[in-house]
Structures are given as C-alpha cells and as structure tokens.
C-alpha cells in the first residue's frame, strides 16, 4: 500500500507546456503514473508526450469522463493561487504545488479553501510524492531510471522539507536494504499545505509503513506540532529525524534564511537546537549524521517486531 497516491490515481498537470512541466510529465508517464490531461490557458488542442492539453481544468475533467484525483501545479507564482483554486473548485482532492516564491497570503488562502472542500495540498516549493516502483506525482526522483535507482519499495515513510534530500535519504534507505513505502517532499516554505503531523494519520493507517524518517530545518513550529501529535496519539510508528542547518544557530547568522524561504527563524523555538530538544522529548530519535539514518531505522524496527 501507500499513502495519498496509488497506481489508479489519475492526475493532470497545470502549466503542462512549461519547460519543467514537459520534463515532469515525461518522467511521471515513464514511471507508470496516469497523467490524463494538462492545462495551459490558450493552448487547447496541443499534446505533451501524448497527453491532451486544455484551456481549463473543467475541460480536462470532462474529457477524462470520470473524476480527476489529482493535479500537479507548476505555473508562475503570480498565477499559482488561481490555478489551485480552479483545481479545488473542479473537485480535485490532491494538489501538488511545485511553484516556489508564492506569497504566504496566497498559500494560506488556497489551504483554507482546500480544508473547506476536503482537498489536500502538498507544497508549495516541493517536488511531490512517490510510491516506489508504482508511480510518482511531480519531479521527485527525476527521470524514471534515476528514480528507480534511488527508490525501492519498503517499510519506511519519508517526509522532507527539501526535495533533493527526500531522494538522498530514500537512496540511503534503499541501499541499506530497507526501502520506502511513500516519500513526500512536503515543501520548504513557511506555510505549506501538509505538515508532518498532518500526514502522520495517513502513514499510521498504511499497513506497509512501519517507520518514519523526517528531514527538517530551522524555522517554523512544524516539529513541535509533530512531537505533540506523536505523544497524543501514541503512534505505532517509530520516527527518526535529521536536522540540517545547525550552523544557523550561530550569532552571526541571526535573521538570515538559508536554503529555503521557510528557514527564517522568527522566535527562540524555531532554532535547530530547540527543535532537537522538543523532538527528543517526544521519543523521536534525532541522528547527528545523515549517514546514521538507516541504522537508526533498523534499530527502531527491530524494537517493534
């Protein structure tokens, strides 16, 4: 099994004629995903790798003749909110927002509407999600042959604020003989559609998943929320965390953001040091070195068997 995405999931790509979107569509099709349409206003009638292009989401849904489950949105920041609202109002329930540099107000509006309509947003500023050897939604893992190299099926759910590190960590898990159930690049912005804690219930309900690995960074309160969730729900899933950006705790780095927009430290609680303390207090193993992740997972899995 997997979370959110499966081989039956039919999705569209909004902004499909853009350079990155064309590549992403090719990669998803090659990996086995069902890409049933694309939208670029004014480009109706074209095809991208055999996928029909429409002017509106409504046309793409009508052409498919059945509900469309998902959409990958990769349009410029100024148009992203409108594209996401269009997807939501046309009944799409899973929306991956690839675009970065979207103002927070726009993100918060899309997320609030998604909540009202029972839709889920992954991202923005993310690479999407992948179910190893089944399908992927977004640029995650890159071309199909590269994705196959880094992602093998297995018991570990991966959630990461960095798209690249999702693949780096999954590759290490694959090389260690563990493998991945579903990997989600959740996005690097200050406000995102789905946080660790908000995705935990899906992993909790997924029989294949037996452990969780998260990659995290300074900035925001997402780790505190995860810690609280793990404690309150008495989760069956052991969690291993890796914290990058510890150098940002230095006095000279105050007020600066590195790597992703969301790494801006706005309060004491957002620093790497404080987050590690909070995660550990919830029984989450925080590894010091990135290469310690597979062994830490094996140790935790051993304890649950």
């Amino acid at each position: 099994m997997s979370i959110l995405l499966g081989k039956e999931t039919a999705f569209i790509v909004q902004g499909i004629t853009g350079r990155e979107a064309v590549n992403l569509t090719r990669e998803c099709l090659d990996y086995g995903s069902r890409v049933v349409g694309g939208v670029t206003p004014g480009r109706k009638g074209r095809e991208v790798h055999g996928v029909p292009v429409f002017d509106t989401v409504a046309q793409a849904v009508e052409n498919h003749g059945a509900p469309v489950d998902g959409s990958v949105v990769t349009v410029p920041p100024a148009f992203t909110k409108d594209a996401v609202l269009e997807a939501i109002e046309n009944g799409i329930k899973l929306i991956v927002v690839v675009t970065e540099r979207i103002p927070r107000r726009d993100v918060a509006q899309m997320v609030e509407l998604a909540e009202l309509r029972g839709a889920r947003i992954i991202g923005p500023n993310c690479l999407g999600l992948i179910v190893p050897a089944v399908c992927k939604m977004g640029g995650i893992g890159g071309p199909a042959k590269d994705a196959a190299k880094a992602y093998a099926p297995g018991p570990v759910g991966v959630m990461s604020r960095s798209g690249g590190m999702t693949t780096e960590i999954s590759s290490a898990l694959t090389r260690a003989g563990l493998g991945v159930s579903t990997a989600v690049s959740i996005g690097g912005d200050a406000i995102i559609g789905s946080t660790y804690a908000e995705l935990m219930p899906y992993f909790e309900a997924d029989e294949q998943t037996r452990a969780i690995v998260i990659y995290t960074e300074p900035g925001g309160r997402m780790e505190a929320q995860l810690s609280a969730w793990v404690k309150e729900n008495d989760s069956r899933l052991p969690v291993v965390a890796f914290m990058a950006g510890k150098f940002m705790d230095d006095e000279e780095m105050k007020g600066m953001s590195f790597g992703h927009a969301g790494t801006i430290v706005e309060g004491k609680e957002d620093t790497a040091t404080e987050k590690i303390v909070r995660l550990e207090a919830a029984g989450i193993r925080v590894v010091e070195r990135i290469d310690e992740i597979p062994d830490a997972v094996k140790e935790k899995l051993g304890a649950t068997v």
Partner: protein
Amino acid sequence: MRFYEFEARKIVELAGIPVTEYGFCTTAEQARKAAETIGGPVVVKSQVLSGGRMKAGGVKFAETPDEAAEHAEAILKLEINGQMPRGVLVDPKAEVKQEYYAGVVWDGTAKRPLMLFSDIGGIDIEEVAEKHPDHVGRGHLSNLLPISDFEAKQTIAATGVTGSQLNRATQVLARLARLFRDNDMILAEINPLAELTDGSFVALDAHMEMENEAVGRQKALLRRQLEIAADDTREPYEPSAFERNVAAIDAADHRGVIQGRDHGFQGNLGLVIGAGGGSLTLTDAVRSQGGKPANYSEIGGNPSVAKACGLAKQVLEKDGVEKIAVMMSIVSNTRVDIVARGVIKACLELGRDPGEAIAIFRIPGAWEEEGFKILERYGVEYCDRSVSIWEAAGRAVAKIQGTPA
C-alpha cells in the same frame, strides 16, 4: 523587507490609524523646523533598521528646537550596529496615560494570521506573554472572509479592557489586521499604542515587515506612497564583493540558479555546494568534522557551464581559500557533467591544477557517468552515492588539514 520607523508610521497612517504629528528629517536644520512646528518637547530618533538604538544613543529628548537640531546633528553621524541612519524622526513627547500593544503575525501551524493585543505596552510582547499571560489576547483570522471589527474586539476584551478604551482600540487593531493582510506583511506591530491624557489613541512606534515574495505586487505602496527605490533591498547587512559578484553571474544567465554568501564565514575550505537542503546538510557536515567553510553556496535548477564556472572561480579567488569542495545531494535536474566541466574550467582559467584545487567532488545523479569520466581525466577525486554526504565532507576536511582520511 523591513521598514524604517518613519515608513512604518506612514503605512499605519495610510490605514487610518492615528499617529502623532512627526517629522522625518535628513538634516539638523529640518529637525529644528520640525520641532518648531510641533512646538513643545520632542524626541529625536535615529532611523536605522537595527534594534538597540536607545542603548546606542540613537534616541534623545529635546526641550527646544535648538536642542533638537543639536541632537539631530549628532545622531545623523552616529553609526548603530554597522548602519548609518537614513535620517531622524522628530516626534512630540506625548502625554501618555497608558501604553498598549497591538500586533499581527503569521501562525504557521494554524496557517492563519494571528492578532495579538496587550494592555501592557512598551516592552517586548514575548516577555509579556511569559510573565503576564492573562494580559495577552489572541485571535486568528480567516484568510478568505473579510476581517470584521468584532474579531479585534474579542481579542482586546480578552485582556479585560472595556469602556471607551475597548471601542477605540478595536478600530486600531481591526485596521492593523486589514493592513497586514492587504499589504502582505509578515509582521505588523504598534508598540507602544498609546492612550493619551485626552483619551485618544495614537501609534507611537510601529514595526512592519513585508514578505519578500510579495514586494513585486506591492509596488503601489512601496514606490508611489513610500518612495522606496527598486534597488533598496534592505538586506540585514551590506553584501560583500563575493556576494555581489555571484549575484551578477547568476543574473547574467537565466539557466539554473547559483547563490553565494560569505557573511559570517572566514575559513579556508571553499564550498561549491547545493541544492537547498543539501547545502544546509553539507555546511553542517564540514563544520562538525572540524572544517572551516569560507562561504555558503547553492547550485540548483541545472545551471550552465559558465554559471558553475563563475561560482567556482569566485570561491577559489576568495581570500584564504586553499581548496574547494564540490558537493551536492543526489541531483535529478542539475547535470553532474555540466557542474564538473564548470569547476574544472574555473581551476584551469585561474592556473590551478583541478586535481589539487578540488578537494573532493561528490555529486551523484543525472549524467554522473559522463561527469566522472571528465573528473577522472583531470585527476580529481570524486565519489558517487555510495559515499555519504557526511563522509565526503570528512574527506574534504581531512585533505585540507593534511591528515589522512
């Protein structure tokens, strides 16, 4: 983007929140005139983006226009935390009955703006929240619905404020909430919000910060109303030559993205690294193993050979840099062979032997076989994904320190 106090006051005023009759001045003579217009005791405040200006002598009280001019003269020359002031603000010394706090911030967990109000003003809100939690009112706002006055009223009433104070403060907080949302702020704070002896409410000081991603669509406010120049980016510090050069190389070519920073870094190991998360992980890995990074950088989005070369050259030419480490997390978009070509070209153009100047090359992923072949030819030590980020960083550190890995 951060604003000076005089700009934050203007933003507050434009939103219909009363302020005292203040004057922004760039000369001592203007300050004298502003004090004359105000007619009475004034306070002269340095206009810097940095905090701690009171402690640094950037805030002074004056009884007469002459004294105001004198203070302005001194404050205009006074550097505070490395910044020269943009000017001074001359403000009447207000007859304050009580100080309050009104603010709006983002709550990232709730994904909504959060209003904050306290009947204890003039000090840091975090301190009030810690020591007097019952004196802080909080209220989340919807992102979709219009902001209603009652939401501000509820937030204020939670602190026990009632009577005409409640009604006057409600107008201020509701307007502040609307300006926060309409202007894409990430912080909008009036502290202190003062109740004067005549019962009126005025904003005595304000702090505003606009989200950088929204600067492009807030031009009407920024350019027309505040007259802020397009190149006035308000970095927390003055960019270095290295940072300016890397930005120029990035801007010259639309393919891919490179970023470079050296503020706070003074080491001997130059880092040509990427992408976002990879750079954070790699910088930590170098430092944790005793390495001294000369800079921070990010490569992403498949840059051209020229761009990768440009970044590597800038890093190699930095003072104190002995070797560079070229490392990324597994790439799927950026091509390994292109980065390899770029960094080798940089070495050759500077008359350096790539095999000596590049401590390690660890970029696994797209086009790696082609990339590794080129590196092999120039005698550069490289590794694939079987060598972790930690281990690759460790090898680079060992090499520069002359100790065996």
